[in-house]
């Protein structure tokens, strides 16, 4: 099924013409309303008028996550706050997070795109959707929520956590669709089985999973555990949230990028040069219709490959393969994106430890587990030489990591030797 037949099956020529028109419009808007773009385009000696073809987009400088941080909190907004109706944000301490804003029309577009995604997964108004994506500042839960309501299905806004309750609801409410991060889905399956519930005999028939790197092997494991079809959804908080691209039930190979709203390019992450469609590289997104927070040539850091062959589902939009690699040091832990530099920023503010650490990521059952080794400083227990002081420092680290990054690590205080032996800042033992 196709939700927005007119736009999702637009012939490619017409789609390209629409993209160019929208690109020229958005460039006009950002050039005159957002200081950052005026500066960067002036520096590149171009104006919005320089862009006469889609290929000309390559003349426009990239925008990076660092640019987003530099303009924290509202520096890149293209409309006044009076026109903004919602704010979302990434995790992180002040100046290291990013804030994303939406006008009423942005939310309508987003809802349309999540509705498209859900229909591509075969959903209709008879479905009951167990939405275990996180509701809150991160855009995952709310983003899908409105799409589910839009298509007339019933949404259970369960969010993440409270696993036993979730399993009870999966049994009692009989949802037909599960939305979650792949690792949380597997965790539900394991916990349910441990509680003696037959997770294969629930009413679920399809699952929509994303916001983590996950492999075909994980997909097989989820499909087996719940006896469902598992589909991949793609989103970037910076660009919009979930619903930028969605795998269709018919094709089940790669996610259709909704190209009437986004332009995707593949670049060589080292040189920044544009690669031919179909080659593996870093994906760069341009949002064509966003009013409050348009991003032009945003470097996602996600490494993938575009699939240009037509899809059997009838959608004309290009597909992207599942993301299995990053071009930077971003880590996704239980669906939350964090950077090592954010951990450092937290440790810097805590007296008694040095901002030297080693983070060890592993799986505890299906879920990500974080062990954080932090170097005690020379003044660590000060006068008292006490256990209490050190335990308070440990608690403070756990609390700040939870408060700022929504990560609950196991903290272990260590001496400098141990970190030296360990070498790297991040040891990722997880398999995806």
């Amino acid at each position, binding site marked *: 099924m196709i939700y927005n037949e007119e736009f999702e099956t637009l012939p490619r020529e017409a789609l390209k013409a629409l993209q160019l028109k929208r690109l020229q419009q958005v460039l006009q808007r950002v050039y005159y309303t957002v200081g950052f773009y005026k500066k960067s385009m002036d520096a590149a000696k171009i104006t919005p008028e320089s862009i006469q073809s889609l290929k000309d987009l390559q003349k426009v400088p990239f925008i990076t996550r660092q640019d987003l941080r530099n303009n924290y909190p509202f520096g890149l907004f293209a409309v006044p706050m009076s026109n903004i109706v919602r704010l979302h944000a990434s995790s992180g301490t002040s100046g290291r997070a990013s804030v994303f804003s939406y006008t009423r029309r942005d939310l309508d577009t987003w809802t349309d795109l999540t509705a498209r995604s859900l229909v591509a997964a075969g959903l209709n108004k008879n479905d009951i959707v167990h939405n275990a994506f996180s509701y809150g500042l991160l855009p995952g839960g709310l983003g899908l929520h409105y799409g589910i309501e839009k298509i007339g299905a019933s949404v259970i806004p369960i969010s993440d956590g409270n696993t036993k309750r979730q399993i009870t609801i999966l049994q009692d409410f009989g949802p037909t669709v599960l939305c979650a991060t792949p690792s949380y889905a597997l965790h539900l399956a394991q916990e349910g089985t441990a509680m003696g519930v037959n997770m294969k005999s629930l009413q679920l028939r399809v699952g929509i999973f994303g916001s983590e790197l996950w492999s075909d092997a994980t997909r097989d494991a989820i499909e087996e555990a719940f006896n469902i079809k598992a589909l991949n959804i793609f989103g970037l908080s910076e660009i919009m949230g979930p619903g930028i691209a969605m795998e269709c039930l018919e094709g089940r190979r790669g996610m259709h990028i909704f190209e009437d709203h986004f332009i995707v390019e593949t670049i060589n992450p080292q040189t920044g040069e544009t690669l031919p469609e179909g080659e593996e590289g870093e994906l760069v997104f341009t949002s064509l219709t966003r009013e409050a927070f348009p991003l032009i040539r945003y470097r996602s850091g996600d490494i993938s490959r575009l699939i240009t062959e037509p899809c059997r589902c009838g959608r004309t939009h290009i597909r992207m393969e599942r993301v299995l690699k990053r071009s930077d040091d971003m880590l996704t832990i239980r669906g939350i994106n964090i950077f090592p530099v954010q951990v450092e920023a937290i440790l810097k503010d805590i007296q008694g430890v040095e901002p030297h650490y080693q983070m060890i990521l592993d799986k505890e059952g299906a879920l990500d587990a974080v062990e954080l080794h932090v170097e005690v400083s*020379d003044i660590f*227990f000060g006068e*008292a*030489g006490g*256990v209490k002081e*050190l335990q308070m420092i440990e608690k403070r680290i756990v609390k700040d990591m939870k408060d700022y990054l929504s990560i609950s690590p196991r903290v*272990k205080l260590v*001496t*400098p030797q141990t970190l030296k032996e360990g070498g790297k800042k991040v040891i990722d033992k997880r398999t995806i």
Partner: protein
Amino acid sequence: MKVEQISVFLENKPGSLEHATRVLKENNINIRTLSIAETVDFGILRLIVNDVEKTNQVLKEAGFRVSKTIVVAVEVPDQPGGLHGIMEVLQKESINVEYLYAFVEKSGQNAVIIFRFDDPEKAIDVLLKQKFTVVPGAKLYEF
């Protein structure tokens, strides 16, 4: 009248205490008495040694996190009620003990109890007034 104790942070992993005692041995440092406080993840080794400065230095050079802590040593007859006499006084004066450990002198006559107070000055005053024998650092290191 105060005594300096060396406090050493130890990770809870095999060999970390052995490493510390090896450094002390190699530097010819004699331990007068010691105690270890432990949690699930780490321990703190508390040492009274014959040479505080040297111990501080060599352990730091070996990569340990070390701090000096002020404690108070009190000598009591090694007999029933020895410790209780002190505790009674401290309780009356509302002086809190953070931790303590003890050892028996070579002669076998007396015990020495090492106290960590949050206010060592006040504790010493009170103990002296009550005629307890507070052992000065210099004497203790040479015991």
